[in-house]
């Protein structure tokens, strides 16, 4: 068994270029220009970048929600780049996404109980409805979600509760890999801390690997072992968080770090312009 659970090699994705009805060809945008990343078993890897860096596209390629133009994705030793949808299905359970906006990814017409239990029955993680219910109740308890939530609809929950439902739904399928795309961006500081602690505890206890996509380096530092810094479709820096944050090698990483306002009054922070910021 190899050390790495997920390996993506030289991923290239371009959008556009197709024909449009009344205009000429749509402009081509290179979203990813040859990106390689690897995620070890039990490792949480951060992918940080600003808007347009390609971080969300990269996450989607890892789950094969976007087909790359070139490159390969290997999951648990198996090349999944060319697998048919039918062949992907058993793997889908093992690679679960958690998205930024839980209101958009939870079916508004289903109760929370059904959202949490149906996938377990589909993927045969639970043998019966009763077993699925019991599992859902157990994890809701662990996530401090009141049992009354189970009978409600997504719009009836608070943002923090919805995000915890999104995490619970993914965790219930006993995945090996989680893709978390900006999952705490819309949350308040206190709910954000709670969600981050939950997911950190979950990956530790269940031995999960995770790709944690975020624009926020402070959040990345709080949860990730290693980090990839993505800029305009290319990885400009990678390494263990401790090393990258202590001594960023690339100007762009430096600029990103210098741009984060810390909750400590720093009189010259606003005036400080790093050379990196100018080039960034």
């Amino acid at each position, binding site marked *: 068994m190899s050390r790495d659970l997920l390996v993506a090699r030289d991923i290239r994705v371009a959008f556009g270029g197709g024909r449009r009805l009344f205009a000429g060809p749509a402009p081509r945008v290179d979203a990813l220009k040859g990106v390689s990343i690897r995620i070890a078993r039990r490792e949480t890897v951060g992918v940080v970048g600003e808007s347009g860096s390609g971080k969300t596209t990269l996450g989607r390629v890892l789950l094969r929600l976007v087909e790359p133009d070139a490159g390969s994705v290997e999951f648990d030793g198996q090349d999944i780049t060319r697998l048919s949808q039918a062949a992907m299905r058993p793997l889908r359970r093992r690679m679960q996404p958690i998205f930024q906006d839980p209101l958009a990814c939870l079916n508004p017409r289903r109760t929370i109980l059904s959202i949490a239990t149906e996938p377990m029955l589909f993927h045969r993680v639970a043998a019966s409805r009763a077993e699925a219910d019991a599992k859902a109740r157990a994890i809701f308890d662990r996530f401090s979600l009141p049992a009354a939530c189970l009978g409600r609809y997504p719009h009836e929950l608070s943002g923090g509760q919805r995000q915890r439902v999104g995490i619970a739904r993914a965790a219930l399928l006993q995945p090996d890999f989680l893709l978390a795309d900006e999952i705490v961006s819309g949350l308040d500081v206190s709910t954000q801390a709670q969600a981050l602690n939950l997911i950190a505890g979950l990956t530790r206890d269940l031995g999960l690997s995770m790709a944690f996509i975020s624009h*926020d380096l402070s959040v990345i*530092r*709080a*949860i990730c072992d290693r980090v990839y810094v993505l800029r305009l479709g290319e990885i400009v820096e990678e390494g263990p968080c401790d090393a990258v944050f202590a001594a960023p090698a690339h100007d762009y990483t430096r600029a990103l770090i210098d741009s*984060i*306002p810390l*909750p400590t*009054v720093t009189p010259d922070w606003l005036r400080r312009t790093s050379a990196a910021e100018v080039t960034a």
Partner: protein
Amino acid sequence: MSKPVLAVHGLSAVSARDRAPILHDVKLIVNRGETRGLMGESGAGKSMIGKAILGVLPRPVRVTAGQIRFEGQDLLTMPGPSLRRLVGERIALIPQDPMTALNPGRRIEGQLTDGLRLWRGLDRNAARKIALKLMEEVHIRDPERVLASYPHELSGGMRQRVLIAAAFALEPKLIVADEPTTALDVTVQKQILRLVRAMQRAHGTAVLFITHDLGVIAQICDDVTLLFDGRVVEEGPTAEMFERPRHAYTQALLDACPRYDRPRAALRAVPAEVIARLRAEAASAP
């Protein structure tokens, strides 16, 4: 010390539907030329205060007590036409979402010069001259092109620069900035914060800066007011409050912030006792 630009006293508001309290006995002072941070988590009422100042509270919200004094005049009892003139001319807003704040069907020039033409009675050419100067102040490199553009042709950071220019166009005494950088990338956010600070210093404007981001407050605000459930929990000079918070809730919020300068460690979510204490304080208050 001179009189404050804005003095909110005992402001209380309820929801007209179910009488649920929205603001309770809020006191808030913004002094001339200072930046006052207004922070709190979602639902704390920070945007409601901003809306009350601008006279644009949503219909179901009713003010039940208090005053909002701007340069001594109470905005709450001011007749509509005078209030509308004051807000726009002397009080300006920098909104959160530059896409929804700008009219998608009009070019930037018209939107930027509306106030100048309406309140200052300037003709098109005179207003245009001021607009070009403002574009320069907010570091827009090709002002001619931007003035001729529609909002969708500009990036988010560029649109926010345009709105900052628009806010300062009439030299207001007070600017309400409601989460003006929340939608932006961090590198752009820093540029915009720097710009707001520079403009505020150059024009001597007072700014009420509404945000949930403690980092932004720490770097840009002179003083800060923290809200919870429509009540002021703590207020004071930013440096003092961030270094020696008096209230457990302030400390808990600071502890809950992830920081890139601290190695990986469990974050402390706001403890339930702290929230219970806040609710108890609210219940025992008159």
